[in-house]
């Protein structure tokens, strides 16, 4: 549904995105992740036909965003990061205007606008001026204008920013309900949101894609091992020695010792579960087992590892370059 190839956008002095390529399939919800200034908004602006790319190509629903911009614009709903709205228009009037501009036939317009207002929970403010609305309501009006023409592709730049927890849950449920008939690409830096909404993620840093794929795959890639947290009341050196002897243990890391209770992180191969063996070991040695749990790999850790890893590699490159010169 969305195909991006070697997309590059250069402003006078800076390269906002550099040879970015990815695909999004029909009906998928894809999360676009990255630190601030990574190039998320630039990519979305190109996809929505607001700015042209310097080089590379992007196709939405089979149409090129540059040469067939009108066709693309007919098929997308876009919500920019700042949610710019006409503050001097009333909510219903505004949505009617958007529906008309986007070519919703006159006969369906009123019904469609009413439906969208119900869905985005803004029907109660439909007669108010947009400028008088709270941030949360504005955000929802922004989402409503994106979906009012029932477009195939939705491009949402930070859709839940500035909402209260209750509203976030509602908007997420709304976005989730769009999957299937709509293809959604959404950017965010709230990581739990991505794991909740998206099947696939794309992580972008400094204008380049550093990781992409289904979340489970990315986690597996970033963390090839399973880690277990272990707390036992026993002499720490002995615990380390005994645990290391269990087959398959790659590494034992001692974290803290408090009143004779040691906390350890045990790393084993990804598909191995050593919790039973650890508990037997503790029982055999007559150590009191206080805590034993698997450390879950969150997207957050993947993100930090991927984005930070990128930087260490760069530093290494730089230093090796210096050595070569020396």
């Amino acid at each position, binding site marked *: 549904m969305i195909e991006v190839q070697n997309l590059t956008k250069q402003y006078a002095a800076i390269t906002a995105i550099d040879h970015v390529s990815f695909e999004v399939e029909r009906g998928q919800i894809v999360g676009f992740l990255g630190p601030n200034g990574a190039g998320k908004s630039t990519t979305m602006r190109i996809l929505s036909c607001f700015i042209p790319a310097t080089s590379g190509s992007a196709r939405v629903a089979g149409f090129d965003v540059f040469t067939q911009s009108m066709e693309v614009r*007919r098929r997308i709903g876009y919500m*920019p990061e*700042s949610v710019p709205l006409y503050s001097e228009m009333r909510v219903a009037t505004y949505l009617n205007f958007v529906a008309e501009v986007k070519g919703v036939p006159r006969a369906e317009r009123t019904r469609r606008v009413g439906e969208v207002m119900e869905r985005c929970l803004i029907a109660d403010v439909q007669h108010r001026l947009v400028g008088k609305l709270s941030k949360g309501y504005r955000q929802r009006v922004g989402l409503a204008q994106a979906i009012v023409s029932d477009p195939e592709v939705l491009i949402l730049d930070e859709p839940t920013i500035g909402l209260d927890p209750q509203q976030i849950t509602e908007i997420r449920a709304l976005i989730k309900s769009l999957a299937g008939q709509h293809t959604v690409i959404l950017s965010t830096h709230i990581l739990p949101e991505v794991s909740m909404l998206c099947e696939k993620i794309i992580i972008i840093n400094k204008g380049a894609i550093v990781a992409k794929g289904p979340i489970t795959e990315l986690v597996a890639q970033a963390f090839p091992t399973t880690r277990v947290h272990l707390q036992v009341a026993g002499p720490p050196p002995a615990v380390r020695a005994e645990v290391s002897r269990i087959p398959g243990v790659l590494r034992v890391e001692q974290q803290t010792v408090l009143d004779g209770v040691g906390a350890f992180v045990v790393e084993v191969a990804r598909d191995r579960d050593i919790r039973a063996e650890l508990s037997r070991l503790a029982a055999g040695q007559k150590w009191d087992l206080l805590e034993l749990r698997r450390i879950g790999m969150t997207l957050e850790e993947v993100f930090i590892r991927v984005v930070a890893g990128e930087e260490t590699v760069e530093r290494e490159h730089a230093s090796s370059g210096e050595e070569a010169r020396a």
Partner: protein
Amino acid sequence: MRVWPIFKKEMGLYFTSPVAYVVITMFLLVVGYFFYSIFVFFAMASMQAAMNPTMARELNVTDGVMRPLFSNISVIMLLLMPMLTMRLFAEERKSGTIELLLTYPVRDGAVLIGKYLAAFALYAIMLAATLVYPLVTGVFAPLEWGPLLSGYVGLLLMGGAFLAIGVLASSLTENQIVAAFLTFGVLLLFWVIGWSAEYAGGVAGRILQHLSIIEHYESFAKGVLDTRDILYYVNFTALALFLTLRSLESRRWNG
């Protein structure tokens, strides 16, 4: 071309914000004052003429009331038109709404025409309201409808050119004040450019005179519809709108 929804939106914005009411009210107030003073002056002149038959033959309301009124209206327009157009693009750029507008399936040209027509319609409403003055005059004295009509046609054409410059200025900046001053400055230059024609003389003088935006209004005020003058305003408007379109496109390019 989806001009209609854009036009409706802009008209709505004129009338939900105080802009339209303030501009129309001030315009009518000032024009009303000018009409009053011109009319009173003409009435006094008529009294004196009553005692002097040769002078009386020279007097008629078209030349004595309507022509001075038209020329006053054109000066007021010079000051008020920039206020009508300054927000059209500058405000959208400032608030960021241009990003959504230009990603909707409408061509830049349709957006431009919709906005321009909205400003033009508001101006036409303002002018229509001034019809009250010739009608009042007509109650007291015989009016020539030909020159009156051509005077209004001229005002519409000249105002259309003013608005086109205003739209162009608004597309160049995101600051409404800058847009208004730019419009005013450019219009004023085109207004006074003919003055130097006398000193320049020759071909240069004729060119300067031809460029003058007010020079071409003379024939309309006299009741003459001259193709050259009509073409001048139409070309002026078309050129300014064309440049606006280019400016919108270049903004898109520079992201």
